[in-house]
């Protein structure tokens, strides 16, 4: 059972109150982009075993989308932050590095 702290309402919500939104920080490629970019945007995901940055929606609560970082293998949560961030904030990156020193870092 995942318990994520919603950065908007501050509630520690369990996953039955939340809706998963898949990998975070995707760049949208729409009309006019190359077929390769569009395919990658639609279908290609990192799917790592380890640190994963995701989008979640507090559906049965305040209704806001936010970001969460967790380990897909152990379900450890490294932190959550608001959807207004285009990349993980420094304190989140720091928290991941403390627990996973071999993590490759955030690439965009």
């Amino acid at each position, binding site marked *: 059972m995942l318990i994520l702290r919603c950065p*908007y*309402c*501050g*509630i*520690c*919500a*369990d996953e*039955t*109150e939340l809706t998963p939104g898949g990998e975070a920080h995707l760049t949208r490629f729409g009309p006019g982009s190359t077929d390769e970019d569009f395919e990658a945007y639609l279908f290609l995901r990192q799917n790592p075993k380890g640190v994963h940055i995701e989008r979640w929606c507090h*559906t*049965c*609560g*305040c*209704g*806001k989308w936010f970001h969460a970082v967790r380990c897909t293998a152990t379900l450890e949560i490294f932190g959550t932050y608001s959807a207004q961030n285009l990349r993980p904030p420094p304190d989140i990156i720091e928290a991941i590095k403390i627990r996973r020193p071999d993590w490759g870092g955030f690439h965009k």
Partner: protein
Amino acid sequence: MSNAVSVLGGAGFSGIIRVVDAGVTGMITLRGDLACPKIAGAVKATVGVNLPQARNITQNGHNGAGWMSSDELLLTCPYEEACTKVEKLEEALKGEYFLVADVSDARARFTLTGAAVREVLAKGSPADLSPGAWPVGELRRTRLGQVAVAFWLRDDITAELVCFRSLGKFVWDWLNVTAGDDVPGYF
């Protein structure tokens, strides 16, 4: 004007707590920047209560203002006054970025009374409803069974619950089954 009726017409049920369809209630959704002083002023002028702190509800009789999210309030008032209050809010907030909607007919409200009120709600909600985590006056949006609801404590033994009207019968049935059962003794 049509005769407004609530989802279960004021039905009541007594089990380990008393569950009552609280009748038609004026409910207004107000969205906007809650930090904007004009919003606080308009809420005070319209429903007569102060802006709530995050996750709280401020109440004065039938009137109240509940914090639904960082940019959304739920204003409650007597059913007949909702229409005029919406107009008043729209007038007061002219020029601001906001949205006001009368959602009275889209919602159902139940009043739950009894010492076991926390226990009954905790049977269907993942929220921590222990006295330390859910104090009187805190509005908790969560789920009950499989549907989204919001509830708050008026006092130690009285809770108010709001849900979508279309789900009112489900919530009513759920509360009847749960309140007809034993006190689980979580807290």
